[in-house]
């Protein structure tokens, strides 16, 4: 089963490397990993989707906490969350095909963000399933290129947080 975790970490050089090294070293199976800034410039936030069991997720959590730069880890799997993935899909499109792609995109609330003579770029945001759905429909037309951000996730409602940056001993 897939589990979604978020980890907040100090925004320092090499932190991404530490996390990647941990996953490699302990042989954890990452499905997707996304890292970006947060409301606090000193803190980065990572969304990690892993394939495993409840036990492996607990061990991953404990090992993430062992990294000195990791401030907070939450397992969001069984909690109400908003998860989003963004994809850019370049599709083969002769001028006659464009309108068909546009209407497909419309159904998925995706946008066409670039039009060239023989291709278009479709941008879609949503859950993984939604993106898979559009990809499936666009495949017969010929997907030339695709990029996805991987999932980002956030708890609904009240914000939970771990220790603040002022935690000292």
């Amino acid at each position, binding site marked *: 089963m897939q589990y979604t975790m978020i980890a907040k970490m*100090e925004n320092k050089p090499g932190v991404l490397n530490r996390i990647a090294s941990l996953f490699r070293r302990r042989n954890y199976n990452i499905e997707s990993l996304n890292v970006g800034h947060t409301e606090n410039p000193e803190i980065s936030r990572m969304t990690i989707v892993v394939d495993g069991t409840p036990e492996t997720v607990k061990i991953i959590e*404990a090992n993430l906490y062992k990294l*000195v730069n990791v*401030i907070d880890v939450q397992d969001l799997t069984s909690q109400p969350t908003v998860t989003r993935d963004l994809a850019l899909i370049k599709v083969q499109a002769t001028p006659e095909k464009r309108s068909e792609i546009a209407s497909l995109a419309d159904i998925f609330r995706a946008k066409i963000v670039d039009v060239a003579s023989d291709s278009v770029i479709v941008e879609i945001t949503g859950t993984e399933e939604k993106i898979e759905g559009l990809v499936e429909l666009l495949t017969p037309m010929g997907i030339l290129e695709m990029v996805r951000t991987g999932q980002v996730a956030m708890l609904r409602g009240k914000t939970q947080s771990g*220790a603040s940056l002022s*935690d*000292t*001993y």
Partner: protein
Amino acid sequence: MKLAGTDIFWECMVREGVEVMFGYPGGVLIPLLDAMLKYPIHFVLTRHEQGAAHAADGYARASGKVGVAMATSGPGATNLVTGIATAMMDSIPTVFITGQVPASLVGKDAFQEVDITGITLPITKHNYLITNASQIAETVREAFYIARSGRPGPVLIDFCKNAMLEEAEFIFPEKVSLPGYRPRIQATEESLEKASQLIAQAQRPVILAGHGVLMAGAMDELHQFAEKIQAPVAMTLLGIGSFPASHPYSLGMMGMHGEAYCNLAIQNADLIIAMGMRFDDRVTGNLRTYAPSARKIHLDIDPAEIQKNVIADVTLLGDVKTVLKSLTDKTAPKEHEEWLDQIAEWRTESHKRDILHWEDENKLYPAHIIRDFWEYTKGNAIVTTGVGQHQMWTAQYYRFDQPYRLITSGGMGTMGFGLPSAIGAWFAHKDKEVWVIDGDGSFQMTQAELATAVQEGANIKILIMNNQFLGMVRQWQEFFHDKRYAVTSISGPDFVKIADAHGIPAQRVTSPKDVLSAIEFAHKTPGVVLIDFHVEKEEDVYPMVPAGADLHDMLRRPLKNKSNPTSR
């Protein structure tokens, strides 16, 4: 106050209590070592950086303080790697300083540049790269704090040369600000309650004591706990010394070369109370059949060790000393006469098979040498070892009643650890002598440190169990590969002559009648002394649980001594 980076560094080291460090100079370290001359720090020049790392490790294990080693950039740094990994696997509080090329050259493949922070990422608790002088004070402070707190471990600081030369405002940080680092955790009342219930129900409990008991200084707590619930105590290799070997409840060492009665007790227990240990594969054997009828309580300071190898019924997170105290208070006294009688029966059977109680027939057996050494030193010696058969014999036959006396590489099993770690241990106890029990293979790996020991005037006594084999591997070949001794025959040099070349008094012993007088000679002769014991070449370590086998599935010593033709 503005100071040069070099001075900031040494000011911090002095404030962290560093008096001695081990290492090797090199190009980028020149300004740093030049500045050191103004500070009350003794720098021990080892003959190889690996020796420096093990010496810092041995110092830390013997003193309980943070051990420090320093090496230059490039090959100096990479030569530390084995020592860092050794300290990591055994959770030893150590700080490693490596010089680095100037920050402007980092990433340019400069002369003697190596990405040591990248290399040591998985073998340090944490590591740092200092690129400017303003980072020094904070980094050194954090490094020492991280190394010694929580579950201790090695921290590496890679120190760019430009940061040594620049000036910066020196403010020694009073507090460390590490928002993500929470070394202090405490078992919940609920877990303690559950644990005490399991203890109350148990008929056949066994305590498993690991290195964490020693790290936490929880020897008294363990003693009280074991006596209160009348439970026998089995120790991991690194847990040796946490409970007196001569105590009637002591089961000695567990695991692959553990006492048979100890392993049988674990396999027949109905409750395992494990503390400060991590269920290493050398301890458990086959996990699927490990302590099959036992419920398990696991107490450890590192949450990542919980449920890693063995699934525990109750987990107690925290420092062994504090948690064990609470647990003892919560637990009612118990008696387990029947269980202890059963174990005593197994123990009697073990004794019959133990070469310790056999005649030597004028042959030189390591077990007998170590027993004689134990008797001569009254069980009070500080002993370091290399890795292999001699290490296991030391663990089995030197019956440690005191904590922090056995210094040995457990998790990493690093050959060559004995002599350099003894140099470190001696600096922690300069009023005492430190004994090295080594194999001829292990000894040759770091033999160069003899010169270091002599230069420092160390009081180190080296006992080599010389069987002209890489004995542990040879033993596996004997048991599992039809005695095909591939690459395990090692013809050593004449160790007495090697010693002589260093000005070290030495003796060769080939007969059991000369053992005691040689040990006495080593003890009474000041400084470094070496004794080369030419022991039975194909003697084996018993019992042995083959790798991956069930813990109760031990190869036992045959009741009659095997014919052992040696060509000595």
